[in-house]
């Protein structure tokens, strides 16, 4: 049954006013009227990544604006702490997959819209899968997943085939703050280009945690980073298990008492070990609406789309800033040029690896290193790791000539980074 039979007269009364005539800033290429409506409602296929705080809002907005072929991917199940904002879920849904529950809800509420859920990881899907969409909207809280989809969409671009360029719209929130951006893979600045704009997660030096705790957070980190493995060995800590949190809380509270530190609570313990970011419905609504508005404008050409970054801060009044984030020539994903890196001739391979993990514009978790002619260090497989391990203590300058290149790869990222090394 074609979707259009579900439409009733005046269903799109509001949206149609936009689609039936151009505005003063609309591109002359805009085909007002039936053609654009038909494309939006019958041909356009859109992928939503994430069915959480942003995802729920995104799905509802897309469905109401007239997108009828929507796909959604999410690997999570519903938790009770989602219910203060993820409005497609009810207490009875706790424990069920977000993607499936959200898809069903939208299809029940908005007739004629098909939402195809996939309960799993974005990495399960290949290029053919992503190639079928006209647009991708991301509402994720994971940096790693965003880097993956961003690199995948950039790599997919084939200059011979304009259809291979999939606009990526990305949103993110934290408390009263958030951002929405439009990425045209290979054309505009990509997610990787702006990695250095991310807030650095607070990391406490291990010596503070071990020897000189001052804050309740230091005691909690001690319990989770040092005490848990010491007491439980290989048993994995599950931050979603209240009993594990209680154990950590008790350890941290006892340590805090020894050191006369105040302020360790159960809730703080949970917040620190899960790295909980405050989240509310209203901020998600603003950012999701902004993402969907850009998707609507791109799909219909009814107005120019965002070029390319919208940032919102809602703690003191309503402050927002719209600007063009610049593409980086040395971006490992879309730039093509090697990244210059200057290190001391005394720097060891191990120290270089730490640097790559730490550096704000690189942040590669488990980097493997090689030169065009030799392997320096590989994290996996185990045999190769063992074979290259002796290099860790060697100086980089012994293995790589000045101005030589090092290729950095990581299993979590579908791209490699070229470093041009110079010595000081």
């Amino acid at each position, binding site marked *: 049954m074609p979707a259009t039979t579900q439409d*009733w007269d*005046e269903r799109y009364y509001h949206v149609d006013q*936009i689609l039936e005539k151009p505005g003063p800033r609309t591109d002359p290429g805009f085909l007002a009227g039936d053609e654009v409506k038909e494309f939006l409602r019958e041909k356009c296929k859109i992928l939503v990544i994430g069915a959480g705080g942003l995802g729920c809002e995104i799905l509802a907005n897309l469905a109401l604006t007239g997108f009828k072929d929507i796909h959604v991917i999410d690997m999570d199940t519903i938790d*009770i702490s989602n219910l203060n904002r993820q409005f497609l879920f009810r207490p009875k849904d706790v424990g069920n997959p977000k993607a499936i529950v959200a898809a069903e809800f939208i299809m029940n509420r908005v007739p004629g819209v098909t939402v195809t859920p996939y309960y799993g990881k974005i990495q399960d899907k290949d290029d053919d899968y992503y190639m079928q969409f006209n647009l991708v909207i991301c509402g994720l809280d994971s940096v790693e997943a965003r880097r993956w989809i961003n690199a995948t969409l950039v790599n997919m671009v084939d200059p011979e085939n304009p259809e291979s360029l999939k606009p990526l719209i990305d949103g993110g929130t934290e408390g009263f703050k958030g951002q929405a951006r439009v990425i045209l893979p290979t054309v505009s600045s990509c997610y990787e280009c702006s990695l250095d704009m991310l807030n650095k997660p607070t990391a406490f030096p291990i010596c503070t945690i071990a020897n*000189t705790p001052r804050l309740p957070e230091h005691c909690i980190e001690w319990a989770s980073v040092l005490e848990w493995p010491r007491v439980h060995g290989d048993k994995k800590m599950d931050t979603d298990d209240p009993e594990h949190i209680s154990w950590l809380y008790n350890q941290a509270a006892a340590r805090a008492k020894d050191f*006369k530190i105040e302020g360790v609570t159960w*809730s703080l313990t949970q917040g620190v070990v899960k790295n909980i970011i*405050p989240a509310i419905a209203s901020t998600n609504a603003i950012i999701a609406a902004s993402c969907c*508005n850009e998707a609507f404008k791109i799909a219909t050409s009814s107005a120019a789309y965002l070029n390319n970054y919208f940032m919102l801060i809602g703690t003191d009044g309503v402050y927002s800033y719209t600007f063009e984030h610049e593409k980086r020539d040395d971006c490992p994903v879309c730039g093509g040029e090697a990244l210059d890196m200057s290190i001391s001739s005394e720097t060891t391979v191990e120290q270089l690896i730490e640097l790559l993990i730490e550096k704000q514009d690189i942040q590669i978790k488990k980097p493997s290193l090689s030169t065009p002619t030799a392997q320096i260090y590989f994290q996996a497989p185990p045999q190769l790791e063992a074979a290259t391990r002796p290099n860790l203590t060697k100086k980089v300058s012994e293995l790589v000539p000045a101005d030589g290149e090092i290729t950095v790869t990581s299993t979590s990222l579908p791209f490699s980074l070229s470093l041009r090394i110079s010595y000081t």
Partner: protein
Amino acid sequence: MKESQDIETATTALSPTNATGPPDNKARRYDRQLRLWAASGQNALESSRVLVINGTATSTSTLKNLVLPGIGHFTILDPSKVTPADAGNNFFLNGPHSIGKSRAEEEVRLLLELNDGVEGMADTRSLEEVLDTDPEWISGFTVVVAHNLDSKLLDRLATFLWSDDSHPCLFVIRSSGFLAEFYIQYHEHAIIESHSETAPSLRIDKAFPGLLEYAKSLDFKTMDPTEHSHIPYVVILVKALEDWKAEASLPHGGLPPQTYPEKQEFKKSIVAMKIKPDEENFDEAEAQAYKCWTSTTVPSEVAELFQDTRLTNITPKTPRFFVLLAALKEFTQQEPYALPLSSTLPDMKSNTENYVHLQKLYKTKAEEEKGVIKKLLAAPVPSDLVDSFVKNAHGLKLLKGKLWDALNGDKEALANSVGTLPKQVSAHLALSALATFHSDNPTATPTVDALTAEAKKILPELLEGWDDAVGEVVRAPFADLPNTAAFLGGLVAQEVIKMITKQYVPINGYCVADLVDSWTGVI
């Protein structure tokens, strides 16, 4: 705005924090927002009553974002029946099944599914009827939200609400396709917990006796090296500043570093104290050295609040904020001419012992100064409110508002805004012109010419961005696009939460949004 009133909700509300065990279901549900506004904010939300006039898509988007975090009660006032157009753009209607039914009733039913803890009512009277027969009914709410209301009716509503400063605040929302704006009408809004991002002064330049004694008691030179690398930077600076001022024979004798060379010299003296190059505590001290010559005074924004005439005559009826403010003012008029000390010490390089000791010194002094404030209170104020006031004294805010639409009658204010915010003013004028035109000619189609004529009545010289704004408004007059509705619903709900919780800082002006070029601005 009304203070919280519902005693039952207030007493069954969240306890401040159950510190030692896993949270109950309610605390788990609200965990991600409690980390923003804590139990005090949540309790305020749960005792609030929100009235929404006109059940449009923008209205239900707003309500959704208020029902989810758990306001106490909402009422939708709307006499209309669901049209096919409503059923297409409103997520809180059940598609074609809702057509012909009461819009308010359908929406209330679907919104209530979001949160068992919220009470919702549909009222099918018209606003006109309420204003004619029972306007006082409206004053039983905490906040009133009105979207795309007829401008004459809106003026009546705004005038009624403005007539008494105990009446609820009014959110006026207007939207038309990609353009939108909203305004909060309030007389005054006092904020204690503004969540200011500036840190309170550590008073290094005016070290209190306990701190000074502690700093002086340490002999850096004879200390063992491990101990030396764990002296907190605050202590290093206090001592270095004392030593500097003690050199009375030098030109700067008795004064902190003033000139650039003096400041450099001071910094050098700190670095010279190092006994090993990697002593991070001395690096921190060098980086924070400016705190020695940045004199701790009352921040100008707070000092301005002291000018308020209500402070001179405190009566039992004076709002607590001003009772507290009067005591604070008196406090700052004596030594050390500063705000009361904050008990929160930032983290710094130190061993546990020194840090905890320093923390205790700050806490003790802060308690002592809070005691002074308490003695200065001219009327009784609950102790936890005094605590919060003193803790947040450096970020106090008092916003003064205006009657809705006052801007359009204020040629000078409008002219001032035009210079800096031409696009924003153009969008505001286009929406104003549309509202007036439609109210005067309900059946006529607005044109660029008609709206331009209307706008010129407000501002004779139209400006940059006018064509862009008016063209967009004429393209889709009053169109309630799902994305614009969701965007506004988020922004407005955020501000409603700030007004109700009296935390964070709401807008003071007209917030305009243009979703063609994706910007917002506040006039």
